């Protein structure tokens, strides 16, 4: 089927179902789908339709539950952002406290956090731009490489592992995370897309137990801000990357969340950590969740391709 650019959302039944549920239950989010479609067009719609079809199929209850998770996740983030505008700091929390409240909390992870983050990759413009940047500027290098082995460190939902496996059909990967629920969710996603024969997940804290085996490519998306000492983590990543290898590392900047501990105030602070860990910058993207009204801080992502 040839899809004409921006020919309307009527050709995407799962997205229409998604939009109808948002309109009914969360009317204040009713323009979210149309706004993103207007900004990113048919590629966005085809990507999201594929995700919804493969992840939820005909199970409307599972889809609605994921949307409920997203709505709560997004409103929590906005409320924290409003606090951040005044206080300019993240609510003080140790890594252990965050891990207990979030990463090892099955209900929170499976019903809210992971579905929320997964859908945010399409519903938050800066997350979608980050995904596009990864595809165009990083995964294309994997496609051309002889050795297409990659590690994804801090897999979260498994979104980026799945993206690499999807766009680089010869890639073989391994994910590392500390959360058994991230492992479960990632394995489910990779299996539903049919890539499970090329991928596995290991539960491991790579700072304290750094794997000796190195890969040619490495992905670590929005992990740094979850750590008390992101520089130690970056040094561990450096050891996991083969000499001459390439990494896609991102961080949330001025973007509070339930489990964000380390505050990056700007992209330069992330770059400083990357340099200290002996990474060299090749390309970067900094994108905002929405434009500021005046001079208030807005949530940013910094995405860095480093060698």
């Amino acid at each position, binding site marked *: 089927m040839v899809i004409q650019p921006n020919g309307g959302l009527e050709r995407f039944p799962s997205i229409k179902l998604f939009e109808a549920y948002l*309109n*009914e*239950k*969360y*009317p*204040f*989010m*009713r*323009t*979210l789908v149309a706004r993103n479609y207007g900004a990113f067009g048919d590629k966005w719609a085809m990507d999201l339709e594929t995700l919804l079809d493969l992840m939820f199929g005909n199970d409307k209850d599972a889809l609605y539950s994921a949307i*409920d998770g997203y*709505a*709560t996740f*997004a*409103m*929590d983030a*906005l*409320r924290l952002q*409003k606090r951040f505008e005044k206080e300019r700091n993240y609510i003080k929390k140790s890594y252990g406290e965050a891990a207990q409240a979030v990463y090892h909390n099955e209900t929170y992870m499976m019903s809210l956090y992971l579905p929320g983050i997964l859908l945010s990759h399409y519903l938050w413009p800066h997350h979608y731009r980050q995904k596009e940047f990864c595809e165009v500027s990083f995964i294309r290098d994997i496609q051309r490489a002889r050795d297409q082995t990659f590690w994804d460190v801090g897999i979260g939902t498994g979104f980026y592992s799945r993206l690499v496996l999807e766009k680089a059909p010869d890639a073989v990967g391994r994910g590392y995370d500390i959360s058994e629920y991230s492992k479960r969710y990632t394995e489910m996603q990779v299996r539903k897309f049919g890539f499970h024969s090329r991928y596995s997940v290991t539960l491991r804290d790579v700072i304290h137990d750094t794997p000796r085996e190195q890969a040619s490519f490495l992905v670590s998306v929005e992990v740094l801000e979850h750590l008390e000492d992101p520089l130690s983590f970056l040094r561990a990543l450096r050891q996991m990357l083969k000499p001459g290898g390439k990494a896609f590392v991102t961080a949330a900047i001025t973007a509070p969340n339930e489990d964000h501990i380390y505050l990056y105030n700007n992209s330069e602070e992330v770059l400083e950590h990357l340099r200290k860990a002996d990474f060299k910058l090749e390309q970067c993207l900094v994108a905002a969740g*929405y434009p500021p009204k005046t001079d208030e801080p807005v949530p940013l992502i910094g995405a860095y391709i480093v060698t």
Partner: protein
Amino acid sequence: MSMSKQKVQAVFREIFQDGDLEIYPEMTARDVENWDSFNHINLIIALEEAFDTRFSSEEIGRMAKVGDLFEILKAHGKDVSWQ
């Protein structure tokens, strides 16, 4: 009009910058210009300050209609009514 309705309505008028806005139980974001996610959270924070309470994440997601908001305020022990 009850004092509590006036109080809620005053918050709505301030957030949506519309001095003529009249709230009613079935009113939703579809009926008010600029009632998006950003203004939803602004509304929540302003109502929390006005009624000295704190809404849970689950309650914030359940406030599709203004009538829902009144029910949630009642559940917080606030004396709110439409009459």
